[in-house]
Structures are given as structure tokens and as C-alpha cells.
């Protein structure tokens, strides 16, 4: 039950994008087309979960015993970068289809603060292994949900009349604000 609440809470209430502001660069950059957004969303779920497992293990079994918690930022970014690149190389070789639909988004994820953010939040919240997996996957799912909804909105936005100065990122941010307002409505769900 707790895990379910944790999952719902991190998808809707504490949506990583709309409430925690993480992953905004790709959110604005890659959300112009629905297709791209789906690919990005799925890729983030995959990478965030994988990266969280690795970083969690490294933190709890390598850094913590040595009292090196303060190195986590440095270690995490290295682990994530290497991991993502490895997965990219691997997928590119093994499955062309998977690479085209998912793999091409992988490099974009290295510097996606959502992934790094989820890894850090896992440590900050002191989650156990199972909680960590549930939290990571559902937070990333929250990202996917938000970017998907947002891409749908933006496709409509593209064919509507927007004042010149507000076109592009400006209107995208305002729209994200309205969506964030809507997501605040979910706050009651987990109480």
C-alpha cells in the first residue's frame, strides 16, 4: 500500500517536472512532437530506473562505508554518463529498431537533471532498495506523463494564434505553468 502511494505520489502529486522542476531543458526542447516526446519519456523511465539502481548500489556499498557521501555528486554523474553511453553503444549494435525509437534519446539523458535528480532524491529520502526502484520508475513515469501531455498541448498550440513575442519557449513555459496548476489538484489524492 505504501509503495502504491509512493508511486502515485511521485507520478502526480510531486511530479518531477511540474512540481520539482527537474528535466526542464528536454521538456521544452523535445516536446514539440508527440512522437519524440513518447520516445523521450520511455527512454527516461528506462535510464532513470537503471541509473538509480547503479547509483544506489554504489552509494550504499561503496561510498557510505568509506564515509565518502560528499563525493556522491561526482560519482553519480560519472556513473550515469558511463552507463548511458554504454547502453547506447549496446542498443545501437543489438537492435536497430530499438535504437531508432529509444536509443537516440539516450545521450540527451546524460545531462537531463531529472535522472540525476532522481538518483539524488533516492539518497536524500533514504529509500530502501524496493522503495528506490518504485520511486525511480514512477518519478520517471511522471516525467513521461508530463512531457506527453505537454507535447499534445504544444501540437495544438502550434496551430493557434500566439502573440509574436510569446511564441516558442515563452508560451511553452506559460502552458507548463497552467499544467502545473492542474497537477496541484492531485495533491488531495494521497491524503
Amino acid at each position, binding site marked *: 500500500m505504501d509503495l502504491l502511494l509512493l508511486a502515485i505520489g511521485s507520478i502526480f502529486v510531486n511530479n518531477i517536472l511540474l512540481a520539482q*522542476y527537474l528535466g526542464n531543458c528536454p521538456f*521544452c526542447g523535445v516536446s514539440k512532437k508527440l512522437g519524440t516526446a513518447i520516445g523521450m519519456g520511455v527512454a527516461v523511465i528506462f535510464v532513470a530506473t537503471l541509473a538509480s539502481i547503479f547509483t544506489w548500489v554504489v552509494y550504499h556499498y561503496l561510498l557510505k562505508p568509506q564515509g565518502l557521501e560528499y563525493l556522491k555528486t561526482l560519482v*553519480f554523474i560519472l556513473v550515469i554518463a558511463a552507463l548511458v553511453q554504454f547502453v547506447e553503444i549496446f542498443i545501437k549494435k543489438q537492435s536497430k529498431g530499438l535504437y531508432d525509437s529509444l536509443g537516440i534519446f539516450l545521450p540527451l539523458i546524460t545531462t537531463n*537533471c531529472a535522472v*540525476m535528480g532522481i538518483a539524488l*532524491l533516492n539518497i536524500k529520502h533514504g529509500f530502501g532498495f524496493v522503495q528506490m526502484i518504485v520511486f525511480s520508475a514512477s518519478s520517471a513515469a511522471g516525467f513521461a506523463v508530463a512531457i506527453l501531455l505537454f507535447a499534445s498541448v504544444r501540437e495544438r498550440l502550434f496551430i493557434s494564434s500566439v502573440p509574436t513575442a510569446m511564441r516558442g519557449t*515563452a508560451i511553452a513555459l*506559460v502552458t507548463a*505553468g497552467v499544467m502545473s496548476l492542474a497537477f*496541484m489538484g492531485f495533491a488531495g489524492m494521497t491524503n
Partner: protein
Amino acid sequence: MNFRQTLTHGLWRDLPPFRLVLGLCPALAVTATAENGLGMGIAVTFVLIFSNMFISLLRKVIPDKVRIASYIVVIATLVVIVELAMKAFFFPLSQQLGIYIPLIVVNCIILGRAEAFASRNPVHLSMADGLSVGLGFSMSLTLVGSIREILGVGTWFGMAVFPDSFEPFGFMVQAPGAFLCLGLLLGLMNAWSRHRGEFFIQT
């Protein structure tokens, strides 16, 4: 670019995050108050100056293939130093900024400047560039923070600016307010650029 241009381009021409639409996460996340915005800006400025410096120094030593990885390590090291220093000297601020401090590592502005500028320019220019972009970023963040704080709480840097009868718009300090505020500012900026007849590129 000459030295003077390098020193000033970040203040208007390439002002982040408005002109360079990069580094949105911190601009949104930590700007609930002007103080947080300024703090974050200073932290980023520090990292920018020194990452530019080290990368400019090391640019001839680092092999091309691992340059991104090396840059990340340099940046991350500086970020951890900032993180520790902030805890030791500005503890309340470091609590406010939370995980957004370590997340400076993945702020595209820093890696972007490292690659686009520091890796091909001498040390003094690179540091000037870091200072310029960093100051621009601090300015923007403080501005967003001020607007959100004044409207959302009714104070500026903790000082009351409105009489007690003012009912603050609470949502300005929350997520929707951040998006809205940044979006509208960006729009305003575009309108101003257009008015001045400048081209603006955004994606």
C-alpha cells in the same frame, strides 16, 4: 570577441536563461525568493569561472575523446566544493537550495560554455566569459526571484514591501508561478528585442 565584449556579452546579448534558453531547471526551482535566486546565481558563477579556468588550462592536455567526461569531472568537483563551502558558511541557504546545488553539474550552461568557449580560448578570456555569463545568470535569477517573492510573499530579500493588508498570491512561490513568471518574462524580453530590431532565435 575582444576582452570587453567577452566581459559583457552574457549581460544582454547571450543573457541566460532568456537568450540562451538553457539552465531552466534552477531558474525555475530555486527562485521562490530573491535571496535563493541570488545564492544560486553566485554558486553557478563561481563554478562557471573556475570550470572555464581549469578547462582552458587543461585544453591542450585533455585528449579529444574524453574531453566531455573530463569536463564533467572538473565541473562536478567544483560543484562539490561549492556544496561543501555553502554548508560550512551559508547553511540556511544550502538547505533552501537542496539538491539543486549538486544539480548544477548537469546545468547545460556550464558544459555549454566549457565546450563553446573555454576549450578554445586562453585563460583570461575564459574566466571573463565565465564571469559575464555567470553574472547574467545571477541577474536573471535574482530578477525572477524578486518578482516571485514580492508577489508571492509580499517581501523582498525578507523585507516587507507591502502593507499587511496585502494578500500575497501564494501560487507565485509554487511551481505554477515559477513557470508562469519565467514564461512571461521571456515573452517580455522577446518583445523588447523585437522592438529594438534585434533578431532573436529560440527553439
